[in-house]
């Protein structure tokens, strides 16, 4: 990456055009990062709330695709929720995803365990991997778009600007988590 390169007028125009083309996807990406950041920054509160709900409210029964039965606790998004069940080893928690596909409804356990905060942390780590997959794919989409519309011109700086923007959104979730863990140590 050449950090000293000052974008030319044409590169700035191309960047503005590409920003308009990918605006919706970037908006969704940032929203997804924001949603994860909200969970991360409220992890303790959400964990406590899920634990309290599991103790006080039976919740509706959800049978997941692996045949296990869970009780619904808290919604994390419109397709994911924290569920719980009683086992011999105590309360067990799971992040369950309910997806409506043309083949039918899928209910899958994404993460599970006896410590609800660990379950949430595992879920967040998996979702960060999803965001990195998404980020890398957008980068390739931008590259393809630029190669098609500006053939034989080096628009690497425009691609980099997308990568930086998206990486920053993902790393903001990380830095928040780091700040929190430092807080716990104190």
């Amino acid at each position: 990456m050449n950090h000293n390169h000052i974008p030319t007028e044409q590169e700035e125009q191309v960047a503005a055009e590409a920003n308009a083309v990918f605006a919706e996807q970037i908006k969704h990406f940032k929203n997804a990062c924001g949603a994860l950041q909200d969970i991360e920054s409220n992890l303790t509160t959400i964990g406590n709330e899920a634990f309290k709900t599991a103790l006080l409210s039976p919740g509706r029964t959800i049978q997941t695709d692996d045949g296990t039965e869970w009780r619904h606790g808290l919604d994390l998004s419109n397709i994911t929720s924290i569920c719980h069940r009683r086992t011999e080893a105590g309360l067990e928690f799971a992040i369950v995803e309910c997806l409506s596909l043309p083949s039918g409804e899928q209910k899958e356990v994404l993460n599970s365990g006896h410590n609800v905060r660990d379950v949430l942390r595992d879920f967040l780590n998996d979702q960060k991997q999803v965001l990195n997959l998404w980020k890398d794919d957008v980068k390739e989409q931008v590259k393809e778009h630029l190669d098609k519309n500006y053939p034989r011109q080096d628009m690497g700086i425009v691609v980099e600007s997308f990568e930086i923007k998206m990486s920053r959104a993902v790393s903001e979730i990380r830095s928040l988590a780091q700040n929190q863990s430092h807080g716990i140590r104190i």
Partner: protein
Amino acid sequence: MPAERLAYSIQEAADLLGIHYYTMYRLIQRQKIKTCRVLRGKLLVPRVELVKLLQTDLK
């Protein structure tokens, strides 16, 4: 689904399945859907993977 297509972009595949493309990336990360790439390009979902999804569940 047009018969001549061998693979679809994430956006196209998501539209065909009626789900958000974020959900597509989640399914890919969990290896519920296999993807391919042309050279080092963007992710593509093979038609056969979509047909499989449309006919069966994801268990």
